[in-house]
């Protein structure tokens, strides 16, 4: 909001607090106006992002309006400012001070003195404010109320009811921010307590935030319980590596081990929230299968440990002698992706590079080059949108902070949301979205039914839209005809950065088309090389096909799981010379000729570019780690090959990339015709997406988190259920020629020809088992 807008929209009010005058916008709460003056009024229930409730009564102050005093001290967190108000806080009013001390004494009557065993001890607002605004001695001599403790309100959140001071932050968060009202305050009086509904488990994707905002130690995380004290931890500002939302985070490390991660405060992006995956999935770094030394394949075909010089030399020789390609993977940082992009062009002299280690299409690549690179649509546009269209995108599962933003606007001003999907998912249900039913693959046709978008509307397309032919073309056409803003939201954190860095066959860094001679000259000068290949490189599918046919004989691979792409890769990869840069052993390192261990996100610095195109910088959290970033290894590899890329550090890569600047001209987009898929009566059209908590390898090792993953079900329509003769909960078998998945069914109002199953959950790994993630499948009663 510009200053001009601010002054025209809001009336300003002047009031006096503790003798100081302050002018604030109308509607500001007294407690917030006091903050502007640096006056801290103690509080527990008050939270700037939650609706005021006045539950804890700790923030009592004396208020006078136009010479008339309130008869009793008032809760400053619920009273908006008025002109001529005179407020006296505990600093100037003995009455307010005594009232606050009284409230504190009452809160402490039933609060146990178990700070030594409480995780919050040392960073507890109750401890701190009891010291600053409480009495030194308690006058209470009776027995404190006790409860059985702790109880699991979910597998990852524990509740000690006796510590609860009933501020209702957690219940308000669940209801107002996450839209998952699974916890509530039960009972009355001294027995009042936070409880869960008996039927609905607390399976919220955002439950970790309740732990973070609890002002006492009533809600604690199961994984962090009793692990450390605040003074043990070294905190580093970081960014989340789990999705493209781009959350600001704080990583707390004790003795070289990450013990917890908290949501950072970035009002423009994640506000103060994050999702449970970002908060609790960090143990993958310390799993037993972590690779610590370089590995090379010996004569017997076994991987053996090797020294760095030896491994680098073998890798360099193999890449130099063969026609090579690069698969980056979607988890690389911007700097690492830039390293891969430069390595491919300078050291391997090829444009055969692609970061999309997932189902992708040619249409998508054109779309990325024309509409995504340099795109500036952001969270604010969602805040201001008159309506939002979601296509091939489930915000709650695939980009949870986008979901929170949408939900905030839905709750605040009933933002109309339309979603094109086979059925209304739980997330769409919560957003009150209007559903345009479409089987997976037919989204392009459905987009043409959308009407009424304006230039204030926002179209959010997910990476899955590339699975429908013509889908992205139709979305682009709709955006053009309506003037609506169009944003592409990938699932992985590194994808947007990889596009900007040019880790794709048709783009050089900064969005420069490889086919444009002047763009190439730009990069050639910057890099100090004579030539850059001018042909558009192969994409992921083509690279893998070329491996099969022998056109490409060597492959440099970043963090890629081949099973994300196709189940048929084994042969091609087994034939080729594969150099794998990996954190942990995977299906791919089993096939690789040289495996080079790389640093995980907490062990390096860098930046991710989130879906908005906003850089999210993070620092090295584990400072004494001996691991090296992808970039450093690529640099060493390039030196070994005699074609240096001159990017020894992250800072050097960031500086060089920034100095390149961006290319303004976007390539012309060639729209694809509208695709249409249909199946015979015996078959069904499979649709699937990844759930937030699933079998992803970055979630390994965190069992408490896995406990709240939504159970895998197959969603079928009522008519199909009738045809199959099943009722909800019965097992159905989804199969292709390659394999079968058997899941309990859930009957929903799904598009009639479709069946939905999770894409990569524990009992439902579509690509590995069925060989496909969308398309025709057989469905029978199991």
């Amino acid at each position: 909001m510009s200053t001009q807008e601010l002054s025209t929209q809001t009336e300003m009010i002047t009031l006096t607090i503790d003798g100081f005058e302050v002018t604030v916008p109308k509607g500001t709460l007294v407690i917030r106006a006091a903050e502007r003056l640096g006056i801290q009024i103690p509080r527990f229930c008050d939270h700037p992002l939650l609706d005021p409730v006045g539950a804890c009564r700790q923030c009592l102050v004396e208020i006078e309006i136009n010479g008339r005093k309130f008869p009793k001290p008032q809760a400053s967190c619920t009273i908006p400012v008025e002109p001529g108000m005179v407020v006296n806080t505990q600093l100037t009013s003995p009455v307010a001070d005594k009232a606050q001390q009284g409230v504190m004494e009452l809160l402490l009557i039933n609060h146990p003195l178990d700070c030594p065993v409480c995780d919050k001890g040392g960073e507890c607002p109750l401890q701190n404010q009891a010291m600053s605004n409480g009495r030194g001695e308690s006058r209470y001599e009776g027995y404190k109320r006790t409860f059985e403790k702790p109880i699991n309100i979910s597998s990852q959140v524990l509740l000690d009811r006796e510590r609860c001071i009933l501020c209702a932050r957690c219940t308000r968060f669940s209801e107002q921010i996450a839209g998952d009202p699974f916890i509530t305050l039960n009972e009355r009086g001294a027995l009042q307590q936070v409880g869960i509904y008996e039927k609905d488990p607390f399976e919220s994707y955002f439950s970790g935030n309740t732990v973070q905002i609890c002002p006492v130690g009533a809600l604690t995380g199961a994984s962090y319980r009793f692990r450390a004290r605040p003074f043990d931890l070294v905190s580093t500002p970081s960014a989340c590596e789990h999705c493209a939302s781009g959350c600001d985070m704080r990583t707390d490390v004790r003795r070289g081990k990450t013990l917890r991660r908290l949501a950072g405060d970035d009002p423009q992006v994640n506000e103060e929230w994050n999702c449970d995956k970002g908060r609790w999935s960090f143990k993958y770094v310390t799993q037993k299968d972590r690779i610590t030394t370089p590995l090379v394949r010996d004569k017997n075909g076994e991987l053996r440990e090797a020294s760095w010089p030896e491994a680098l030399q073998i890798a360099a020789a193999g890449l130099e002698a063969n026609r090579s390609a690069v698969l980056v993977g979607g988890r690389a940082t911007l700097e690492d992706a830039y390293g891969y992009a430069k390595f491919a062009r300078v050291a391997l002299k090829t444009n055969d590079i692609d970061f999309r280690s997932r189902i992708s299409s040619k249409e998508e690549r054109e779309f990325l080059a024309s509409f995504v690179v340099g795109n500036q649509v952001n969270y604010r546009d969602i805040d201001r949108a008159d309506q939002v269209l979601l296509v091939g995108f489930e915000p709650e599962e695939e980009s949870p902070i986008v979901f929170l933003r949408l939900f905030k606007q839905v709750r605040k001003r009933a933002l109309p949301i339309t979603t094109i999907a086979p059925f209304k998912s739980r997330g769409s249900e919560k957003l009150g979205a209007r559903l345009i039913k479409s089987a997976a693959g037919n989204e392009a046709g459905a987009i043409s039914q959308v009407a009424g978008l304006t230039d204030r509307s926002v179209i959010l397309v997910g990476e899955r839209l590339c699975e429908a032919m013509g889908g992205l073309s139709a979305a682009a056409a709709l955006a053009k005809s309506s003037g609506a803003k169009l944003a592409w939201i990938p699932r992985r954190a590194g994808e947007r950065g990889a596009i900007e860095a040019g880790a794709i066959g048709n783009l050089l860094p900064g969005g420069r088309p490889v086919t444009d001679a002047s763009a190439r000259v730009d990069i050639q000068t910057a890099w100090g090389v004579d030539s850059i290949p001018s042909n558009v490189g192969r994409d992921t599918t083509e690279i893998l096909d070329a491996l099969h046919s022998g056109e490409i004989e060597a492959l440099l691979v970043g963090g890629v799981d081949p099973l994300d792409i196709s189940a048929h890769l084994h042969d091609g990869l087994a034939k080729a010379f594969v150099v794998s840069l990996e954190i942990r052993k995977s299906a791919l390192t089993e096939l690789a000729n040289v495996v080079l261990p790389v640093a995980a996100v907490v062990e390096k610095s860098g930046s991710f570019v989130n879906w908005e195109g906003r850089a999210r910088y993070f620092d090295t959290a584990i400072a004494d780690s001996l691991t090296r970033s992808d970039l450093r290894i690529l640099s060493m590899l390039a030196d070994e090959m005699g074609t240096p890329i001159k990017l020894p550090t992250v800072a050097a890569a960031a500086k060089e990339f920034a100095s390149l600047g961006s290319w303004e001209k976007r390539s012309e987009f060639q729209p694809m015709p509208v695709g249409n898929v249909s199946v015979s009566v015996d078959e069904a059209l499979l649709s699937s997406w990844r759930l937030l908590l699933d079998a992803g390898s970055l979630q390994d090792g965190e069992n408490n988190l896995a406990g709240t993953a939504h159970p895998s079900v197959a969603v079928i329509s009522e008519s199909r259920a009738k045809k199959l003769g099943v009722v909800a909960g019965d097992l159905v078998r989804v199969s292709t020629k390659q394999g079968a998945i058997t899941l309990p069914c859930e009957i929903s109002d799904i598009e009639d020809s479709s069946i939905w199953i999770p894409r990569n959950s524990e009992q439902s790994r579509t690509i590995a088992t069925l060989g496909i993630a969308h398309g025709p499948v057989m469905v029978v009663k199991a």
Partner: protein
Amino acid sequence: MSELEPKGSDAIERANAESVPASGQESAPFLKQLKGFWVTFATMFKKPLTIEYPEVKPETQPRFHGRHQLNRYADGLEKCIGCELCAWACPADAIYVEGENNTEENQVSPGERHAKVYQINYLRCIFCGLCIEACPTRALTMTNEYEIADDKREKLIWEKEDLLAPLRQGMLMPPHPMYPGTDHHSYYRGEVTESHPSQEVSK
């Protein structure tokens, strides 16, 4: 005027006069020697002050700050709850604690929490006793033992096993369940005075 400030000039002169012996008032050198020998001779009949350490080990004062001990309840459960308040209080950063959950199979102390790792670094410890003041369960106390010196730096980092008090008569080696019919509060109130046969866990 504070004691630290220089005295007046007359005081300095007086001090100088005292330290420089006035000439002519000295006794004869022979007598001086005799006086010295007399001191030696007389000492032969005095009780010696030397302590024949390490053969003889002197008693300390009862509140002497010696090495630490982690105490147990009467049934053998550890008093330490792994709260790290000792580590927090330590001005020399000599204490390292890692807490852990008590589970049914692994009940080390009463209540929910025990110390999985407990280390005191005697290269750092200054024996100030702030840690034992901070301990909420009187788990950590200081003994009168002062023989801590060793020949390797690593040996001076004492682990929990080194610090734990020995099992006395009737105590059982944890982990084992709490005394039947009690909870952690009973322990804190000192109501558990012995172990119970049912607490013995076959290992």
